[in-house]
């Protein structure tokens, strides 16, 4: 092959390659439009939706778009032989150009060269694809230039957010019990930052678990200490209750001594003297405390009084019982001295009440009841012994209230009212219990410092008087209001 032939062949191949490049470019541009728009749309969506790793994602999308384009055009790219066919057809060579690619054409070369030289490249329609690609580029630039909206506050990892919130609550609870260590707060703050940045990973989960276990341990310790404090408080309360019981015995003894002093008609200046007087006046020896007992009790009491302030000693139950028995004996003696029949009964009643009263409160209400009344220190016993008006025909009836009230059918019988209480006795009837007949030995008790009001009747002092009882009492004492 001569140098000229080589040159001619090279020139022909160059023309073929030119035609091939142009056609391939046209095809590639047309195939590029779809992937480019997909890349641009995906990139813009990613930027607005995710807002993170935009450059990396754009690069990845670009690679994907290029791969898609290559997949589309790979099998459609023109080979040299295919470009030669098109060139041959465009040059109207009638297959001579194809022949020259296979064998030398010899004398046909000038004619072929003329045709190849006159060959005009095939027109390619790249305007629309190029415009579409430029539009896609502008779209991408605009999409990248638009300011991003504020990132959403919603955490990406809801489970992690819940866990961190739980840790915050745990830490707050632990902080109420005792000051929380700084490293725990720092760790919790770090976890919150990780959650906010969306970097909450497996390591953070482990850290959260560890922090939770630490807070649980502190909560357990605080609960144990609280249980200890509760136990100590309970023990202290029990101790205080014991101390209060001792004080109550002291007060009871004081009341009994004071009552004994009053029963001594002012002859005794000290409880000791009153007690001695009560012993001296005599009485059933079995009802009175022995001298030794009293002395022991007195000495104990005196010693206790002397040492109460210092040592906190308490009177014994036996001492109090001795005082009660002394008071009962004194009352019986006084009743006998006033000739009252009720005296022994009252004494026995008082003694019975003392026996019935098992609890300190009952005993306080029955026998030594009125220290707070001021003028009523003698109480029920004194008033009954003074011969105050008896209620009802029996004379020993008294108005009871509360759970001690009893219904006596005899008292509820109707009877003619006496004269002076509504005319003829046959015309006005009333309850037999309302008969204001004066019984023997009855009369108002002149020794009573102050008259008792109707509602302050002894029965009423046992409890709250019923309204009907109050009305009866009021009508009895004040028939003409």
């Amino acid at each position: 092959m001569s140098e000229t032939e080589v040159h001619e062949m090279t020139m022909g191949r160059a023309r073929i390659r030119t035609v091939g490049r142009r056609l391939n470019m046209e095809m590639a541009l047309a195939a590029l439009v779809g992937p480019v728009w997909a890349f641009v749309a995906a990139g813009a969506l990613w930027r607005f939706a995710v807002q993170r790793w935009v450059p990396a994602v754009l690069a990845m999308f670009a690679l994907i778009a290029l791969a898609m384009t290559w997949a589309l055009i790979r099998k459609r790219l023109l080979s040299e032989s295919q470009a030669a066919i098109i060139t041959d057809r465009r040059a109207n060579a009638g297959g001579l150009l194809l022949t020259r690619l296979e064998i030398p054409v010899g004398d046909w070369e000038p004619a072929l060269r003329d045709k190849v030289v006159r060959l005009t490249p095939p027109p390619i329609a790249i305007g629309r694809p190029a415009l579409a690609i430029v539009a896609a580029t502008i779209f991408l630039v605009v999409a990248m230039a638009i300011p991003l909206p504020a990132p959403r506050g919603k955490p990406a990892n809801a489970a992690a957010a819940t866990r961190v919130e739980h840790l915050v609550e745990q830490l707050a609870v632990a902080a109420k019990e005792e000051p929380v260590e700084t490293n725990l707060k720092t760790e919790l703050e770090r976890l919150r930052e990780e959650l906010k940045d969306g970097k909450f990973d497996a390591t953070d989960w482990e850290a959260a678990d560890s922090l939770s276990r630490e807070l649980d341990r502190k909560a357990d310790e605080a609960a144990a200490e609280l249980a200890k404090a509760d136990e100590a408080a309970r023990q202290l309360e029990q101790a205080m209750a014991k101390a209060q019981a001792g004080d109550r015995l002291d007060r009871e003894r004081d009341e009994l001594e004071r009552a004994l002093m009053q029963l001594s008609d002012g002859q005794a200046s000290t409880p000791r003297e009153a007690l001695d007087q009560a012993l001296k006046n005599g009485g059933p020896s079995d009802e009175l405390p022995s001298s030794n007992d009293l002395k022991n009790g007195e000495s104990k009491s005196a010693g206790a009084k002397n040492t109460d302030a210092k040592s906190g000693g308490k009177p014994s139950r036996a001492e109090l019982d001795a005082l009660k028995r002394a008071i009962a004996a004194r009352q019986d003696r006084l009743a006998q001295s006033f000739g009252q029949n009720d005296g022994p009964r009252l004494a026995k009643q008082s003694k019975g009440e003392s026996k019935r009263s098992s609890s300190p409160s009952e005993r306080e209400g029955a026998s030594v009841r009125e220290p707070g009344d001021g003028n009523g220190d003698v109480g029920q016993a004194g008033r009954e012994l003074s011969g105050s008006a008896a209620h009802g025909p029996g004379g020993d009836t008294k108005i009871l209230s509360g759970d001690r009230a009893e219904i006596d059918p005899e008292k509820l019988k109707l009877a003619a009212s006496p004269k002076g209480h509504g005319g003829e006795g046959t015309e006005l009837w009333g309850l037999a219990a309302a008969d204001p007949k004066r019984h023997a030995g009855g009369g108002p008790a002149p020794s009573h410092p102050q008259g008792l009001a109707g509602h302050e009747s002894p029965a009423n002092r046992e409890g709250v008087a019923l309204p009907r009882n109050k009305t009866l009492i009021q009508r009895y004492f004040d028939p003409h209001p």
Partner: protein
Amino acid sequence: MSEILSPADVEKAGQSIALLQAGLNQVLLDQGLVVERVTTAILARGHILLEGLPGLGKTELCKGLARLLSLPFKRIQFTPDLLPGDITGTCVLSGDARELTFREGPLFASVVLADEINRSSPKTQSALLEAMQEASVTVLGTTYPLPRPFFVLATQNPIELEGTYPLPEAQLDRFLFRIQVPAVGARTMAKLLTERVRGAPPSATPVLDAATLDGIFAAVDRVHLPGPVADFVGRLVEATHPGAAGASENVRRFVRYGASPRAALAFAAASRALALAKGKPNVGFDEVKEIALPVLGHRLVMGYEASLDKISAEQLVREIIEHVPEVVRG
């Protein structure tokens, strides 16, 4: 690598071909395309099936061709009672020697006109198979070569179907071209009336001798067929098969059997001859497309749906030419 034809060789062959075509055009008035295809088929050393109405000059064309090429010419009128031995020749007792001697039949000529070939029985038609393909005749176990060149130009009437026997597919495939001879117009008939006595063609003088014809045949063989064009030929033939991947919907529907590889060979030979007739040293896509119709038209075996829908093979061939691209991407 064979050398391509020089422009001088091509020009020389072109001149001879032009003379031949000019002589044929004198025989057959205003049938340029028919003449061109007949010339191409002769240059490609192929057999020709002329199909057309009676009186269009098919027989005169064959006789004129033989005269122009100065080749031995024989005519066989195919009739229903024609036997194979009547055309191939038979062995007869000769004279006093009382020996069987082979008496050549009408096939022993370079140009054989098989007039109304479809009127003989398939047995007789099949007697042409060996002659057309191998250019030889075998009688009683003895093969007798036919003279070279050997051309069979057959005619058939497409409208007189009664008493005819359609050519078998193998026979059809052996014809390089099936050429439709169209009817002529009034001007042609007027010329025929005014320029010829009783319609007889002018006496043709031979324009080519045997040596020249052999030179042309050699030149045809040297016409280069580029690879892309050969690939295009192959895709064209493949597209005629209904089971091929690139077959069109109509091919799948109307064609029962497509063209054989012999069709591709016919494509190559005819396109070379046509290119040389056009003065080209190589084959181009245009030559292939130009001869596709006469090459493929009689090689497609159409289905019954095609006859129902009046779809001809020529229509499908035109569709195939348009359907198959010169350049395949991907």
